[in-house]
C-alpha cells in the first residue's frame, strides 16, 4: 500500500488548495515517529519544515504559484548541508555540526516548493554498501528487519519504501544510490557526472560523486532530476542540462538496441537474481527491443580501479577535518600537531581511517604512478569499452547487484568483502555515465534491482526506457 501519490499530483493538489503543505509535513513527521524502529532517520528538521509549509500554504491562499514540487516533503541524506538542524554525514567528527549554508540541490528543491523534513542515515561519509558503517546506528531493510538496506544511501532509500516521505535524496560515488534501491525495491537514479551541483554536499570522491533521487516511480525521479539539475556557479564540474525537460519521456521500446552485459551476468550472480533479470530481458524482447549480448572485457577491473581512485580522493577530501575550523576538536591535545592527530583519531570511524590511509599510500611519492596513475589509465580502458558498446547499443542492461539484501553483520568482518558488493555498480561511476536501478521482481521474498545504463548526457532517454520497463512489469 503506497501512502503518497505521484509528486506532480501532490504539488498540483497543494497548489489548488485541496491539500495543505502543513498536513503533508505533519503526516511525514508522524510516519517518521511511527516507524523509528527501522532507524532510517538521524534527525528531523521539524520547526523549519513546519514554518516553510505554512509559508507555502499562505502563498497558495494569496493566489501565488509555488512551483512544481509545491508542498512535497522530502528527506535528504545526512551528507547534504541543510538549515534547521544538524548535518553529520553519520560521522562522530561532525557530531553537532550546524551547516552555515545549504546544498545547492536542496536550495533548488526548496525554490520549487519542496520541504525538507528530515535527514537520513548513511554509512559515515558515505563509505560503505550497507549503512552499517554509520557512527549512529544500523538502518534496517523495510522488507526484513534482519537485513541491511544497502548503502550508502540506506536511510534515504528505506525512508521512501517505508513511506516516510514521497522522495529522498542520495549520493552515488560507487553505487550508493542504485545499490540500496536494488535492496529495498526503489527507483534509484545516478545521473551523468556533473548534471546536478554538488556544492554543499560532503565530498567523498570528487571525480565520481553525483547526487540523485530515490523514489517509488521513474516519473517521480524524472521530476526531481528536472528540478535539481542545471547550472550552479558554485560547482565548476557542471555540464549543461538538456533544454527539453527530463519529465518529457520517450517510452517507446520497439527498435531500441539493448546490450546485455555479459560480464554482469557471469558467475557469482545469485540464481534468484539471474531468474528475475532474464525475465526482464525477455520482457524487453517481447516488447520489440533488439536485445543481444555484449562483452566489455575490462569491466571486472572497475572495482580494483575504484578502490584506488576513491580512497585517494577520500584522503584528500577528508584532510579538511582537522579539528580547528569545525567538527570534533580533541580536548586532550597539548599542541597543534597533536590536536590534528587526536581530533581525527577520535572523530573518524574505522572505515574512514582505512580509506584515508590507503589513499595516502597510493598517492605517496614513489607509489603514485604504480597505483593512482595506473588506475586512472585502466579507467580510460573501461571508458573506451563503454564508448565502443554505445556505438552499437542505446542502452546496456544487467543486474544492479549480484545478490539480494544480505543479513546485518554478514559482511562486516572483512572490508574487502563489503567492497565487493559494489562490483557491478562502480563502472558507471568510473565512466561518468548515467545509470538507474528499478525494481524487477523478487528473490527469496526480497527485491531484485534491474540496472539500465546509458551514454553520458542521455539521462532523459534512460528515464524513458526505465519508465517503459515499469509499465511492462
Amino acid at each position, binding site marked *: 500500500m503506497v501512502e503518497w501519490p505521484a509528486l506532480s499530483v501532490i504539488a498540483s493538489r497543494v497548489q489548488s488548495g485541496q491539500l495543505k503543505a502543513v498536513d503533508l509535513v505533519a503526516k511525514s513527521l508522524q510516519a517518521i515517529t511511527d516507524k523509528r524502529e527501522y532507524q532510517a532517520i538521524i534527525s528531523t528538521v521539524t520547526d523549519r519544515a513546519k514554518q516553510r509549509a505554512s509559508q507555502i500554504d499562505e502563498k497558495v491562499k494569496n493566489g501565488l504559484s509555488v512551483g512544481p514540487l509545491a508542498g512535497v516533503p522530502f528527506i535528504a541524506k545526512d551528507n547534504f548541508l541543510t538549515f534547521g538542524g544538524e548535518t553529520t554525514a553519520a560521522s562522530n567528527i561532525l557530531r553537532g*555540526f*550546524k551547516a*552555515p*549554508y*545549504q546544498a545547492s540541490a536542496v536550495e533548488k528543491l526548496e525554490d520549487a516548493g519542496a520541504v525538507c523534513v528530515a535527514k537520513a542515515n548513511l554509512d559515515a561519509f558515505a563509505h560503505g554498501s550497507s549503512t552499517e558503517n554509520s557512527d549512529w546506528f544500523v538502518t534496517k531493510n523495510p522488507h526484513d528487519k534482519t537485513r541491511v538496506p544497502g548503502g550508502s544511501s540506506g536511510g534515504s532509500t528505506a525512508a521512501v519504501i517505508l513511506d516516510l516521505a514521497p522522495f529522498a535524496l542520495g549520493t552515488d560515488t560507487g553505487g550508493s544510490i542504485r545499490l540500496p534501491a536494488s535492496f529495498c525495491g526503489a527507483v534509484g537514479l545516478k545521473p551523468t*557526472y*556533473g548534471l546536478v551541483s554538488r556544492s554543499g554536499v560532503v565530498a567523498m570522491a570528487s*571525480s*565520481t560523486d553525483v547526487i540523485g533521487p530515490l523514489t517509488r516511480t521513474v516519473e517521480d525521479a524524472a521530476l526531481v532530476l528536472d528540478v535539481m539539475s542545471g547550472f550552479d556557479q558554485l560547482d*565548476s*564540474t557542471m*555540464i549543461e542540462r538538456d533544454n527539453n525537460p527530463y519529465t518529457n519521456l520517450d517510452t517507446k521500446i520497439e527498435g531500441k538496441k539493448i546490450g546485455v552485459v555479459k560480464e554482469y551476468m557471469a558467475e557469482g550472480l545469485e540464481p534468484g537474481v539471474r531468474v528475475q533479470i532474464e525475465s526482464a530481458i525477455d520482457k524487453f524482447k517481447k516488447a520489440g527491443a533488439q536485445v543481444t549480448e555484449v562483452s566489455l572485457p575490462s569491466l571486472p577491473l572497475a572495482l*580494483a*580501479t575504484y*578502490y*584506488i581512485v576513491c580512497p585517494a580522493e577520500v*584522503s584528500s577530501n577528508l584532510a579538511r577535518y582537522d*579539528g*580547528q575550523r*569545525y567538527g570534533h*576538536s580533541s580536548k586532550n591535545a*597539548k*599542541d*597543534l*600537531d*597533536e590536536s*590534528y*592527530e*587526536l581530533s*581525527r*583519531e577520535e572523530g*573518524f570511524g*574505522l572505515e574512514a*581511517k*582505512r580509506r584515508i*590511509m*590507503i589513499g*595516502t*599510500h*597510493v598517492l*605517496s*611519492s*614513489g*607509489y603514485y*604512478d*604504480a*597505483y593512482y596513475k*595506473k*588506475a586512472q*589509465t585502466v*579507467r*580510460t*580502458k573501461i*571508458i573506451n569499452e563503454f564508448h565502443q558498446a554505445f556505438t552499437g547499443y542505446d542502452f546496456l542492461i544487467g543486474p544492479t547487484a549480484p545478490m539480494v539484501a544480505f543479513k546485518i553483520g554478514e559482511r562486516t568482518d*572483512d*572490508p*574487502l568483502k563489503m*567492497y565487493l558488493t559494489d562490483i557491478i555498480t562502480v563502472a558507471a561511476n*568510473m565512466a*561518468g555515465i548515467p545509470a538507474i536501478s528499478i525494481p524487477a521482481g523478487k528473490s527469496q521474498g526480497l527485491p531484485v534491482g534491474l540496472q539500465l545504463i546509458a551514454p553520458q548526457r542521455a539521462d532523459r532517454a534512460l528515464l524513458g526506457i526505465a519508465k517503459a520497463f515499469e509499465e511492462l512489469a
Partner: protein
Amino acid sequence: MLFLAVVHGQRQSVILTFIEVMSKLTRKAVLKLAHLSRLKLSDEEVDRFAVELTHILEYVETLNSVDVRGLEPTYQITGLKNVTRGDEIKKYQAQPKDLLASAPAAKDGQYKVKRIVG
C-alpha cells in the same frame, strides 16, 4: 624507498615488480602512513590495519598485469578544461561570522588554534 626513487620514472614494470613484493604493510609502514594522515592510531588499530590494508592492496594490485600501452589516464570524465568565472565579489549565503560559529575556538573574527611558534 631509495631504490624506488632510483627506478621511479624509468620503467614502470620495474616498479610494479617491486611493489608486488612490497604490498605487505609492516607495523612500521602503517605508523608512517598514520603520521602522514595525521591519525594517532591505537596499538590495536595498527595491528588491524597492517592486515586489512595489505589485503586491500593485494586486491587492487590485480591491475598491475593490465596492459594499458598507448592509453592516457582520465582525470576529468566529461572532458571539461579550465573552467573559469569572472573575478568578482559576490554575496553568498554564509557570512564570516556564520562560518566562525562552527569553530572550536575563535577570537576577533579569526580562528584560534594552539600556539605554533615557541
